[in-house]
């Protein structure tokens, strides 16, 4: 673990040069896995996460089926090599809790009544962890659900807000997460329905209000990136389909979007 820096914010700039209300760079690829019904690869700062959706599909064992709706299942999992100290494979208490609140971040938006007796399985793999894996996982899962064609009330967008050097800042990086004074991951819909909210640390009520405001701004930016990625993905596919009727295009291999 790196040393605690003396200051996190100098002249309004953070350790990596960002403003207090600025997100780390986000890169999104939709539809990257062949077997899953929907998938998304997402990089966010140093995080690298992959989400896949399978379903609606039969739910086993049967006694867990619900007669009137689909059961959303969510598994957040860290690759052993995704953190500085190798983690043992398999679920930890931490990953079980994150899986629970992440599932609950989607249950409000998925139209589960459309698919009685089925399961909708969401799998998130953290390949490289760099502060904010649960929000990165939720953003990827949101797009994987869309890619799988699961009907939803809307996308879920997530980001964390925190406090360092006494200031409320958007999207904590690793040092800020390790040594900061508070961490507040939030997920919400474009309609401002909060579907995940956790907090660790120390905030006055006023700071909490400001943090929540900043989270809104952050989620808005994330939402815009998610929307762009979907448009790009599906317009490209549409274009590809049209191009297919033309003679083969020169120079560029087809199906790039799949990888």
């Amino acid at each position, binding site marked *: *673990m790196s040393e605690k820096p003396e200051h996190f914010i100098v002249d309004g700039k953070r350790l990596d040069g960002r403003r207090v209300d600025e997100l780390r760079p986000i890169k999104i690829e939709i539809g990257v896995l062949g077997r899953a019904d929907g998938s998304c690869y997402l990089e966010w700062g140093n995080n690298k996460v992959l989400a896949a959706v399978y379903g609606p599909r039969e739910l086993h064992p049967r006694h867990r089926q619900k007669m009137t709706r689909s059961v959303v299942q969510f598994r957040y999992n860290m690759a052993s090599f995704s953190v500085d100290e190798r983690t043992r494979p398999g679920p930890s208490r931490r990953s079980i809790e994150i899986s629970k609140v992440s599932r609950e971040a989607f249950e409000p938006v998925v139209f589960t009544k459309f698919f009685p007796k089925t399961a909708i399985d969401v799998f998130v793999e953290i390949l490289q962890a760099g502060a904010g894996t649960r929000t990165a996982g939720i953003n990827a899962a949101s797009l994987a659900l869309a890619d799988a064609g699961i009907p939803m009330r809307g996308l879920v967008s997530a980001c964390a807000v925190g406090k360092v050097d006494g200031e409320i800042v958007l999207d904590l990086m690793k040092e800020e997460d390790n040594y900061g004074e508070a961490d507040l991951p939030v997920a919400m819909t474009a309609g*401002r329905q909060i579907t995940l909210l956790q907090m660790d*640390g120390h905030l006055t009520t006023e700071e909490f209000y400001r943090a929540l405001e900043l989270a809104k701004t952050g989620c808005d930016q994330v939402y815009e990136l998610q929307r762009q990625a979907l448009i790009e993905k599906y317009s490209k596919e549409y274009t590809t389909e049209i191009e297919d009727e033309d003679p083969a295009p020169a120079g560029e291999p087809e199906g790039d979007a799949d990888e």
Partner: protein
Amino acid sequence: MSDDVMTEIQRDHLFNLILKGEREDGRAFDEFREISIETDVIGTADGSARVKLGKTELLVGVKIQPGEPFPDTPDKGVLITNAELVPLASPEYEAGPPREGAIEIARVVDRGIRESKSLDLEKLCITAGEKVWIIFIDIHVLNNEGNILDAASMGSIAALLTAKLPRAQYGMGDDIPLPVRDIPVAVTVIEFGGALLLDPSLTEGAIASTSLITITNSDGSISGMQKSGSESLTIEQVLQAVDMAKNAAAGIREKFLEV
């Protein structure tokens, strides 16, 4: 299916009550059931508390023993919180390793104590890098009639407040009280039909599964939050829930936990 029908009927009943500003047991929306906290109830524990919240009942035992620190915090004591939802306490509970519900309770309670810095972990170092005090908080649910989490939070801090470092037993001098610096209190607010209620009964908790848990400290600051459950909350609901939790926590702290 018949369960679903029962649930539907109960839901309608509760909803109609709420429209009239009422609850099934006659309480106000922001009213707790009767609280009783008895400490030093288990002689084999280093600290203990029996909490009754209406008919909900649980025991918290604190055990303290020397052990190795975590590699990344060589000069700090270790806090381990565990919750056992034993099948004695409810027909829904099954024997076996803790499931996500028990893990969430343990982790939220743990975070409240940890993040409020209520326990001075630095003072629990014996020999840096070699030996520190390990503090085990074990939450043992005896009867679940709703709102286990708030009871677990009260019981945990009450047990810590009366716990003694068993130094004599290990030839390290006299037993002294645990260094407790703050009294974090978790309060659950459930949302149902647009209303926010404190201290959900079993039925209320089952019907309105979505809640916001807020942990506040003696100075009114927040040291932990968790949205739990399968519905979403609006920002206004979150802000109102935080206020309700803060006020309720102040009352509980003053009446039951301050020495």
